[in-house]
């Protein structure tokens, strides 16, 4: 039964090799049959990888501990929900999951292109590139890290899942992230396909539009869920620490965001063709890099690379993608010439260009800081790490600049903006920007970055509001409909544009939350005895009691903290430490009270028999706006992705 999972890999890899050969041959001989069989093979691969995935799921659900993966990540007492989620908890399973998503995506591409592959010459090449990626992941699982590896005995129980991972945030974080990663295979495959075929008009750019938004959407959600998990479960008070693993998901997000914007330049003005190509490749490669770092712990040391079986595979594949692609770009460079030039500094084109350049700069700065320990170890023989200070100092000014462009871009004209255009459009947003800054100064906020950040939030929001307002008014006066229905009508008529603006609103809200919670944290670490109180901001926190509770899975030690606001009882919080039965280590459960302006965050640090305990109290301002912003981003993405009626009918 378990063998079926592995044999499905063998069948799939043979089919994938067939796709590569057959699509190349088919393109060369212009043979419909070759290409059509290659296309249909994607459905078969999808079927077989799905079979493999179900075999693993079945083994998980039936708790077949003879499978090494299942013995390592689950146990008899693990709740069923987390047992299923253990699919993507470890290296082998998560690579299978990646491959599964890739196989499904491949089938979707095959379906979408069923009428097109004879018209568009790049499609067969795109098939070949997707199949090569399939082959890479299948090689990993067949030769290096087989999820179906059996132990030569049947252990009575498994090791269980790390309690840190037994949390809803951690359950959804990896699959959303992997979905984003896997989906970036397709923009890359189309780009490489276009290069191979030489059919370099805007057709491929239109084909990747949806993949691009879709992948970016899931990448964003994945990153935020990871941050939320760190905030609620890791329990150190924050959500982002510029840790290599966090960075490895953020780096492709940055280049992906650049790609998302620069494709519009090509669609509208025939510009940035080489740039788009390279961004599609870099984003895909960084997604592979992200998978690699998370799954191998490579960045912690060059030595761990030597010990990891996966390392060489990943390095070779990433180099193959990078070098092969660049050779193709150079080969086709005459066909990738820009059709237009930037006419003026004050134009939409130049704003787009600057924004994408900044995103790429942030991307490489983050990559540099993340990879620095490796670089220094390779060059100087000694490992040197760079701290959060580096990342903050380099990225914050760039983000502020980026937000400035984000505000200017919607209201500035293509080609060349006139002075009148600028005056008319920006007078109100600029005034609001200044007012915000002045008000913040009056309230004695002198942190220059924070003041700029908050004022820019207001600036960007007012620009976007103006856009919605004008669109609505124009539509209402043209059609005679009321403002309310006009507002929805314009969104419906131009989903991508207004969906994009809604995404921007969400990003502004996230930025607002990040600024508040990173610049204005109040924290205190205190030892307390029952009955003692501690003041923090507007609150007084009284430690009342320590309670013990036994459940079949764990023992819960909870501290009762009465929160008083302005002298009145306000809320009771229970920060906990949980001791899982088959674990030696405790799991800290923080208590978080979220309000619209700030979170009160309480960690139980330790305690003694006499119930004296130590706590860490934090007030993290505006955290909730990051979660709200993410929901707004999601709404925007869904609007942008929503199919137009004519597509739906076709």
């Amino acid at each position: 039964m378990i063998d079926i999972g592995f044999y499905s890999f063998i069948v799939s890899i043979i089919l994938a090799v067939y796709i590569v050969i057959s699509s190349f041959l088919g393109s060369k001989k212009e043979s419909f049959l070759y290409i059509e069989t290659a296309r249909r093979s994607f459905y078969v691969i999808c079927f077989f990888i799905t079979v493999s995935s179900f075999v693993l799921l079945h083994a998980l659900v039936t708790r077949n501990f003879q499978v090494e993966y299942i013995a390592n990540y689950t146990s008899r007492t693990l709740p069923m929900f987390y047992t299923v989620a253990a699919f993507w908890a470890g290296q082998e399973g998560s690579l299978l999951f990646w491959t599964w998503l890739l196989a499904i995506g491949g089938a979707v591409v095959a379906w979408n292109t069923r009428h097109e592959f004879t018209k568009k010459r790049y499609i067969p090449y795109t098939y070949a590139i997707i199949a090569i990626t399939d082959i890479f992941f299948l090689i990993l699982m067949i030769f290096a890290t087989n999820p179906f590896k059996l132990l030569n005995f049947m252990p009575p129980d498994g090791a269980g899942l790390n309690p840190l991972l037994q949390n809803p945030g951690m359950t959804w974080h990896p699959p959303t992230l992997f979905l984003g990663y896997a989906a970036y295979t397709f923009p890359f495959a189309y780009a490489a396909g276009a290069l191979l075929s030489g059919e370099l008009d805007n057709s491929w750019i239109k084909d990747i539009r949806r993949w691009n938004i879709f992948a970016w959407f899931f990448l964003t959600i994945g990153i935020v869920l990871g941050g939320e998990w760190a905030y609620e479960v890791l329990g150190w008070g924050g959500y982002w620490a510029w840790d290599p693993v966090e960075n490895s998901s953020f780096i492709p997000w940055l280049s992906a965001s650049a790609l998302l914007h620069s494709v519009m330049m090509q669609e509208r003005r025939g510009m940035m063709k080489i740039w788009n190509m390279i961004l599609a490749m870099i984003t895909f490669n960084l997604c592979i890099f992200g998978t690699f770092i998370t799954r191998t712990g490579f960045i912690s040391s060059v030595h761990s690379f030597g010990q990891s079986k996966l390392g060489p595979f990943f390095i070779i594949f990433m180099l193959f993608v990078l070098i092969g692609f660049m050779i193709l770009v150079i080969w086709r460079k005459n066909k990738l010439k820009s059709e237009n030039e930037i006419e003026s500094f004050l134009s939409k084109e130049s704003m787009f260009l600057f924004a994408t350049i900044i995103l790429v700069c942030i991307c490489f700065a983050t990559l540099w800081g993340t990879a620095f320990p490796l670089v220094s170890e390779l060059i100087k023989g000694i490992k040197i790490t760079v701290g959060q200070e580096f990342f903050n100092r380099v990225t914050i000014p760039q983000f502020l600049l980026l937000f400035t462009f984000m505000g200017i871009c919607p209201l500035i004209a293509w080609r060349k903006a006139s002075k009148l255009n600028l005056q008319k459009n920006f007078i109100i947003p600029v005034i609001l920007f200044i007012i915000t800054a002045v008000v913040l100064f009056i309230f004695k906020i002198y942190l220059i970055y924070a003041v700029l950040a908050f004022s820019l939030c207001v600036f960007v929001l007012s620009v976007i509001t103006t856009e919605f307002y004008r669109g609505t008014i124009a539509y209402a006066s043209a059609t005679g409909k009321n403002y309310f229905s006009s507002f929805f009508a314009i969104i419906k008529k131009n989903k991508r544009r207004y969906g994009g603006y809604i995404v921007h609103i969400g990003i502004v809200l996230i930025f607002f939350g990040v600024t508040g919670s990173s610049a204005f944290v109040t924290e205190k670490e205190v030892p307390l005895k029952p009955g003692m109180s501690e003041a923090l901001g507007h609150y007084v926190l009284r430690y009342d009691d320590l309670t013990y509770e036994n459940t079949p899975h764990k023992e819960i030690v909870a501290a009762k903290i009465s929160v008083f606001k302005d002298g009145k009882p306000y809320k009771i919080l229970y920060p906990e430490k949980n001791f899982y039965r088959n674990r030696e280590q405790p799991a800290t459960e923080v208590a978080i009270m979220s309000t619209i302006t700030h979170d009160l965050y309480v960690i139980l640090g330790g305690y003694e028999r006499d119930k004296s305990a130590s706590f860490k109290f934090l007030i993290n301002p505006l955290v909730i706006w990051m979660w709200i912003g993410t929901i707004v981003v999601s709404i925007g993405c869904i609007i942008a992705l929503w199919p137009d009626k004519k597509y739906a009918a076709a």
Partner: protein
Amino acid sequence: MTTKTKKILIGSIIVFGILGYLAYSGMQDSMVYYLNVGEFLNDEQKYKNEGVRISGKVVDGSVVRDSNGMRIQFEIMDEKDKNKKIKVDYSGIIPDIFKPDITVVVEGKLIENHVFKATVLLAKCPSKYQEKNEKGTTEKN
């Protein structure tokens, strides 16, 4: 060279200059050596007043917790050479997975009497939320 390319050139030199400076200064201020216990002890004088990160294994039986649970003293040893040890003093939230025999990373400075005053205590490699090494089979894939 046209005035336009000149403008672009000057503009990008300024921008990249600023970015380069920010990156450089950020690195200077946040760079720390990342060593294991052996490497640190081999060149102790060099690192005396520098902030460093040291990774090592928590020595069994060396852990002393303060009564309120916020301060902890322990020894870490080199993973290869058990005789190389450093005393560590740390105050703050102790990671859940901290216990004897696991690998930790401490960041801080060596103070008098060969005690390493740590301001950061990370347990194990935080990137691998993987379970304990069952019969030594999987950990390092």
